[in-house]
């Protein structure tokens, strides 16, 4: 008891200032997963979306990087009890925590990316990764000189298979005789944080003759892009636009607009246009895509651009359907 009253006395001032600081009503917030805010990938994309919002509106937002599983619920509750809304959580690892916390705060809004939480105050944002991967698959097949390309998912996970399967479909559509290698980096979630192992896997694919490597491995993917660049071949980035990492050696990036999803959630709340439920973002919604910028301009021929533009138009129009691995756990090619 004496301990708590002592610390109360010490902390009294701090507590007051904490409450005062949190009083800015209905600021949005984003919680980053273990990979960290600057993973050059998924979490960083969420950060970029939040920064976009900040720049455009001049508003502020709360943010927190978790270090262990117990902090998921803790951080959600900390933001919620201080009135932050919406609270964006990137990744399916937040499902359990969100299911526990969201019902306690029915007046606040929550967003989960890459997973579905079916609650009246939660927006679940899914991406049609297969559609964006289809486009980069076409580019890879057209760029390849050896006739062999590769895809490197972090590990055997349905979500990552959806990327790989879309990539294979696109590659085969552009060049029916293409050979696509697929190698996992590891066997579990920690593979996302293992760039050294990713480099080894990439080197092994390069040794087998692959000259375009598509990394689907979050933070570990940097190792794949590095290995491809070192060998003078090409890598393909994922989630964020990673073309700038090795200009001239990153063919393109399959962008998953986590930034747009985060930005939209923040803006919708601000403009009173918030909706709950599932959003499925594909090429038509600009939720996914292939990145073109100054860094890869020299690598892309007009034929490649034309082919990709046509495929994109067909997919958006619905005349070309890209199979989603997650529907039947199988890939047609």
């Amino acid at each position, binding site marked *: 008891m004496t301990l708590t009253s002592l610390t109360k006395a010490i902390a009294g001032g701090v507590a007051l200032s*904490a409450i005062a600081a949190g009083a800015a009503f209905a600021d949005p917030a984003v919680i980053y997963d273990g990979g*960290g805010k600057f993973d050059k990938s998924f979490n960083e994309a969420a950060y970029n979306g939040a920064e976009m919002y900040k720049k455009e509106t001049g508003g502020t937002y709360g943010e927190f990087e978790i270090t262990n599983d*117990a902090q998921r619920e803790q*951080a959600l509750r900390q933001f919620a009890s201080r009135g932050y809304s919406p609270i964006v959580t990137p990744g399916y690892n937040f499902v*359990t925590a969100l299911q526990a916390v969201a019902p306690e705060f029915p007046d606040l809004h929550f967003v989960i990316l890459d997973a579905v939480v079916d609650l009246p105050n939660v927006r679940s944002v899914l991406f049609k990764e297969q559609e964006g991967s289809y486009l980069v698959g076409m580019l890879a097949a057209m760029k390849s000189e050896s006739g062999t390309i590769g895809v490197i998912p972090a590990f055997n*996970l349905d979500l990552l298979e959806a990327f790989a399967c879309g990539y294979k479909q696109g590659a085969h559509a552009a060049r029916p005789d293409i050979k696509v290698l697929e190698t996992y980096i*590891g066997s*579990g*979630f920690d593979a996302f944080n293992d760039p050294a192992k990713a480099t080894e896997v990439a080197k092994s694919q390069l040794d087998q003759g692959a000259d375009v490597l598509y990394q689907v491995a979050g933070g570990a993917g940097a190792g794949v892009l590095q290995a491809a660049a070192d060998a003078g071949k090409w890598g393909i980035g994922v989630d964020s636009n990673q073309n700038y990492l090795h200009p001239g050696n990153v063919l393109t990036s399959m962008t998953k607009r986590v930034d747009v999803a985060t930005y939209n959630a923040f803006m919708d709340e601000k403009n009173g246009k918030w909706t709950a439920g599932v959003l499925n973002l594909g090429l038509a919604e600009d939720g996914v895509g292939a990145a073109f910028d100054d860094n890869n301009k020299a690598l892309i021929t007009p034929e490649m651009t034309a082919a990709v533009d046509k495929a994109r138009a067909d997919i958006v129009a619905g005349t070309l359907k890209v199979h989603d691995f997650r529907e039947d756990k199988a890939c047609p090619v």
Partner: protein
Amino acid sequence: MSVRVPLPRWVDVALLPVLNVVLAFLIGGLIVLSVGQNPLDAVGYMIYGAFGYGSGFGYTLYYTTDFIFAGLAVSLAFHAGMFNIGPEGQAYVAGLGVIIVALLFNGLHWALMFPLMIIAGGLFGAFWAFIPGYLQAKRGSHIVITTILFNFIAISLMGYVITKILKPAGVDSDESAPIQAISRVPQLREFLALFKNSPVNLTFLLAIVALFFVYWLVWRTKFGYAMRTLGRNPTAARYAGISSSRMIMTTMALSGALAAMVAVNNVGGVQGRLILNFVAGAGFVGVAVAFMGKAHPVGVALASLLFGALYQGGQELAFSMPGITREMIVTIQALVILFTGAMGDMLRIPLEKLFARWQRPAGGG
């Protein structure tokens, strides 16, 4: 020249550790200052987060629970002259034992489930520590090397088991099926509203029991005496008729069983399911805790509370002062480990000189 005079006991066990922590915080404060933040505010947030409100204090005790078990595991082995760096892996593998009984008897009342989890988790953890113990006793493989390696084997093994075997269909995240609410170790908040929303659970009381158990075992039993004899002087132990190989294997198994209780806390009490990497470094903190606590239960308890407060206070700090990143908090925690562990005796000689002079006032020399 002057003979080294041993420090008074209270300086050794109390003043020296406190000075080390203060020194660590001073340097941590300089780091905070260097990024343009106010170190006093930072300390305030840490203390407030760790002790200032019920839920925060609950989180502190939750971390403390893990650190006590891991710290006791390292301490126990240390008394027998062994350096067990493997509580991380032992706790991880113990999670498998816990989840197996929990899913097998899912729905059983917690009063029956809790002991089952302790036994099953304990057996798995003991087994994982027994192997390095066996290799040391019978094959002479050094325990430090084998326990470190067994951490890596545990990570790969558990990664495989969780993602390929335990993960139910239709679940994206890497985790087992959930344990029903009635079978989970009850949260202390169900009895004390003070701890609202915090994950501290009955396992905390088990940790307190474990502290007394280890004291009793090491200083009040024949087994403990044999263990300490082996630790202090293996040759004397052999002359006294103590079988060192049996002692090594038994002690390591007990050490692993203590580390295993980290799994009961997390799998059975907090997450209610087995998730990837649930130990999250608690096993390694246990090494620091054991050293800071001088392998004594009282010291382990205090050091665990300190590290629990650092973890939870660090979370509060990162949340409330966005200018201070997660990595800087790890740096501050690392400084505490550095000053209390690796450089724990840095101030010893200056202090000894100071006290020697103080006890024999000037003039003598």
